[in-house]
C-alpha cells in the first residue's frame, strides 16, 4: 500500500514536469513577444533587446527551461513581467478565494447530483426521472457564462437576493458556486443515476430486500455506498474540468481568485504568471486524483490491503 502510494507520487512529479515542459514550449512559440509588449509601443529594437536580456529571454531555450525548473525546485515561480511581484506571492494570495469557490462548487454539484441522481434511479422511467434527466441535459450543455448571466439577471438584478459581484461574505459565494456547480450537477446526476441503477440490479440488493429491509434503508445503507465508489473516483478527475470553469466564473463575477489572475495574465502575455497558474492547477488535479486514490480503499474494503 505504502509503496503504491510512493509510486503514485513519483508519477505525479513526472506529470508535473511534463506539464511544465509543454506549457513552457507552447508559451515560447506564441506569436506574441512579451519583451516587445513590456517595452511598449514606442520602443525601438535596442530597447526591446534590453528588456529581452533583462528577462533572460535571449538565452538558449534549454538553459531558460533549466533556470525555470531549478527555480521551481526552490519554490520560486519567477517574477511577473507586468506586476512587479513574485508569481508565487500573487498566486498564494489568491488561493483562498479560489479554494472557497471550488469547495462550495463541488459541494453544490455533488449534493445536487446525488439527490437528483438517486431520485431518478429510484423512480426510473417515471416522470421524476425524465424531468431530472432533461434538466441534467440542459445543465450539461449550457455554456457556463450563459448560466452565470442568467443567474445574475434573475437573482442579483431582478430579485436582488445576492450581490452582483465581489468577494467577502457568504452571500457573495452563492451565485458563483451555483454557476460552477450546476454544470457538474448535471453530470453527477447522470452518473449517480446509472451507478445506482446498476447497483439496484445487483444480487446483494435483492438479498437486502429479502431480509425485510425498507426501501429507504436498502437505498441508503446498501445501494448508495456501492454506487458512490465510481463517483468518488470521478470527483478526483473532475477537479481538472473544474479549473477551466473557475477561470470563466471568476472573470464573470469579479472573483479575486487565481482564475482571474490567469485571465489577466493571458491578456498581457505575462508568461511567468500563466506558467505558474497552469502548474498550480495541474498540481490541484494531481492532488485531487491522489486524494481519490487515497479515499477509495476507505470506502471499498476490496481494494484495501494489497
Amino acid at each position, binding site marked *: 500500500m505504502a*509503496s503504491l502510494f510512493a*509510486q503514485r507520487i*513519483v*508519477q505525479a512529479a513526472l506529470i508535473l514536469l511534463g506539464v511544465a515542459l509543454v506549457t513552457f514550449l507552447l508559451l515560447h512559440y506564441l506569436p506574441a513577444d512579451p519583451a516587445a509588449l513590456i517595452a511598449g509601443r514606442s520602443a525601438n529594437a535596442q530597447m526591446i533587446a534590453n528588456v529581452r536580456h533583462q528577462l533572460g529571454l535571449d538565452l538558449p531555450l534549454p538553459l531558460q527551461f533549466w533556470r525555470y525548473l531549478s527555480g521551481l525546485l526552490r519554490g520560486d515561480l519567477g517574477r511577473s513581467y507586468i506586476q512587479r511581484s513574485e508569481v508565487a506571492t500573487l498566486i498564494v494570495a489568491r488561493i483562498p478565494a479560489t479554494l472557497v469557490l471550488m469547495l462550495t462548487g463541488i459541494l453544490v454539484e455533488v449534493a445536487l447530483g446525488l439527490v437528483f441522481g438517486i431520485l431518478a434511479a429510484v423512480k426510473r422511467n417515471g416522470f421524476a426521472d425524465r424531468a431530472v434527466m432533461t434538466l441534467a441535459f440542459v445543465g450539461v450543455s449550457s455554456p457556463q457564462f450563459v448560466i452565470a448571466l442568467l443567474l445574475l439577471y434573475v437573482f442579483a438584478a431582478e430579485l436582488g437576493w445576492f450581490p452582483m459581484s465581489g468577494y467577502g461574505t457568504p452571500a457573495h459565494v452563492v451565485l458563483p458556486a451555483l454557476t460552477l456547480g450546476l454544470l457538474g450537477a448535471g453530470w453527477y446526476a447522470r452518473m449517480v443515476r446509472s451507478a445506482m441503477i446498476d447497483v439496484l440490479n*445487483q*444480487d*446483494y440488493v*435483492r*438479498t*437486502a*430486500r*429479502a*431480509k*425485510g*429491509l*425498507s426501501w429507504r434503508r436498502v437505498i441508503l*445503507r*446498501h445501494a448508495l*455506498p*456501492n454506487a458512490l*465508489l465510481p463517483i468518488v473516483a470521478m470527483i478526483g478527475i473532475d477537479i481538472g474540468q473544474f479549473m477551466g470553469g473557475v477561470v470563466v466564473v471568476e472573470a464573470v463575477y469579479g472573483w479575486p481568485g487565481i482564475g482571474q489572475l490567469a485571465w489577466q495574465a493571458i491578456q498581457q502575455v505575462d508568461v511567468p504568471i500563466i506558467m505558474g497558474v497552469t502548474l498550480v492547477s495541474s498540481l490541484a488535479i494531481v492532488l485531487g486524483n491522489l486524494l481519490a486514490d487515497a479515499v477509495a480503499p476507505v*470506502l*471499498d*474494503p*476490496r481494494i484495501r490491503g494489497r
Partner: protein
Amino acid sequence: MTTPEPLLAITDLSIDARTPEGLRPVLDGVSFALVPGETLCLAGESGSGKSLTALSIMRLLSPSLRQRGGSIKLAGRELTTLPERAMRQLRGGDIAMIFQEPMTSLNPVMTIGAQLTEAIRIHGATDGGSAETRARAMLDAVHINEPARRLGQYPHELSGGMRQRVMIAMALSCRPKVLIADEPTTALDVTVQAQILTLMRELKGEFGTSIILITHDMGVVAEMADRVALLRAGRMVEQGSLTQIFEQPREAYTKQLLDAVPRLGAFRGTDGPPRVTAAPPPVLPAGPILFVRDLEVTYGGATGWFGRGSPPPPVVKRVNFELKAGETLGLVGESGSGKSTIGKAVLGLIPFTGEVVIDGVAIAGLSPGAMKPVRRKAQMIFQDPYASLDPRMSVGESIAEPLAIHGIGTRNERRERVALLLRRVHLTPDQATRYPHEFSGGQRQRICIARALALEPKIIVADESVSALDVSVRAHVLDLLLELQEEMGLSYLFISHDMAVVERMSHQVAVMRGGAFVETGSRRAVFENPVDTYTRALMRAVPVPIPSTIRHQDRVTASA
C-alpha cells in the same frame, strides 16, 4: 391418513411479463403446497419459472413482471394482498431466502457482522441477548470457524462456500418457517456443494424450517427432496413424492429429463466415448497432435513501472500431457484448479514457459505471423454461448470471420462454406442471415462449434462448453461433438468441472487440483479405479440422481 395442514399454499399462480409486444405469460396456473417440516424441490430447466415462483412468494418480482392471478397463503394468511409494511416483516422473518450466487449476494462494502445483525435487529430476533451474540451463534451453527473474527470481515475475504454459509446463517437467523433456497449450490464446486447440502439437511431439523429448494440438478433433487414439483415453461408438469417422480414418472417430459441426466459411472467397462455414428474411423497419424511438456503459467509477473517483489506462485505447475489424434483428453477439476489456464496456454493466448507442440510445431516464442498458420489447427469453444457471439454480427458473418481473417476463399466461397458448416452442426443454411438473439442457448453453442470448425482445425479446446446448457440440450451438443470427432478425426481438450460429462466424452482423463495433475490415465482407470484421494473425494461428492431409498431397495433386492 389425513393430509397435514399446508404451511404454504400456492394456488393457480400466474405471472405475466411486460414485453414491447404486450403481456406475455411466463407462469401459468401453478399450484403446490408445502407441508411443515418437508423439503419440496421445485425442479425444472431454465425458463421453467421456478425462480419467478420463489420471488413472487417473497413479492420481490422485478417491475417488468406482474402477477396476473392466484393466491399465496402462509399458514392461512393471504400474502398477495398484504400491505407492503406487513410483507416486509414477513420477508426475512417468516420466509427467508438464499440465492444462487454467493459471490454477489452479499454486500461487498459491509462487514459480515453488519449484514447479519441487520436482519436480526429488524426482526427483533435477538433471543434475549445482543444481536452480535446471536450473529456469532448463527455463524457457529453453520460451522464457520472463528465466528468472532468473521463478523469483522468483508465478503471478499471469504470463499464461495463460506459466503453461502453466511447467507444460510443470515436466512435462518430469525427462525423462519419457510426457507426458499434458489439454486443454492449451483455456483459452488461439487465438494463444497456436498457440504452445503449436508448443512441444509442438518439445520432443517435444528431450526424446524420447511424448505423450498429450487434446482435444475436432478442429482440434488434426489439427495434433498421429500416431494418434487417439476416445472416446464411456466407450467406444472407433475408433482409427487421423490420416489414416485423418479420411479414412476407419469409424464413423458419427466422421463425424458431423467434420462438426459448424466450419471457418473454410466460408461463403466468401456474405453472410449459411445459411438454415435456408423462412420468408418478416419485414418489418423499415430503420434500426438498436441504435446505438452513442463507447461507452467504464472499470472501477473512484473507489472507497473516499479515491478518488483517476488512473482506470485504459478497457477499451472509443470504439467505434462499428450493428446492423440482423434481422441479426447478430459481435464477435470474444481474452480481455480488451472484447467482453463491450460486451455488458453496451449492455444498460445497467454504467456507460458515449457514446451507446447501443436501438430509438430513448437509454439513457444513464435512471432504472431508464424503463429497464424498454427492457430488454424487449434480452435476454441467457450462456456457462455450468449457472450461468445457478437450480437451485431449475423451468424453467417460470425462463422465466416475466421476464414476472412486468414484470407481463405472469395466472398462467395466463404458463403458456401458457411452453409456447409451450418448443416454440419444440424442447423440450416438460411439461418446464416439471422442474428444470435434469435437462437436458443443450444443453437448458439452449435453456431460457436461451426465457427470453430471453419478453419478445419485438428484440435478443439472446449472450455466448459456445455456447462451453461440445460441437461436435455447438453446431451445433444455432446452428441454433436462426438459425431464430429468420429467423422472428422478431431481431437478435443475437453475442460469441465462436471465429472459425469467428462466421463462420457473422454478417452484420457487428467484430474487437476491447485494447478497440478493429481491423477492421469485412461478413462477406465481414472473412473473405475481412482488412486488419488482427491479424485475419490470428487467422485463421492457428485450427487447421484437416484433417490437413496431406491438405491437402498436395489441393494436389498440384489442381495435377496
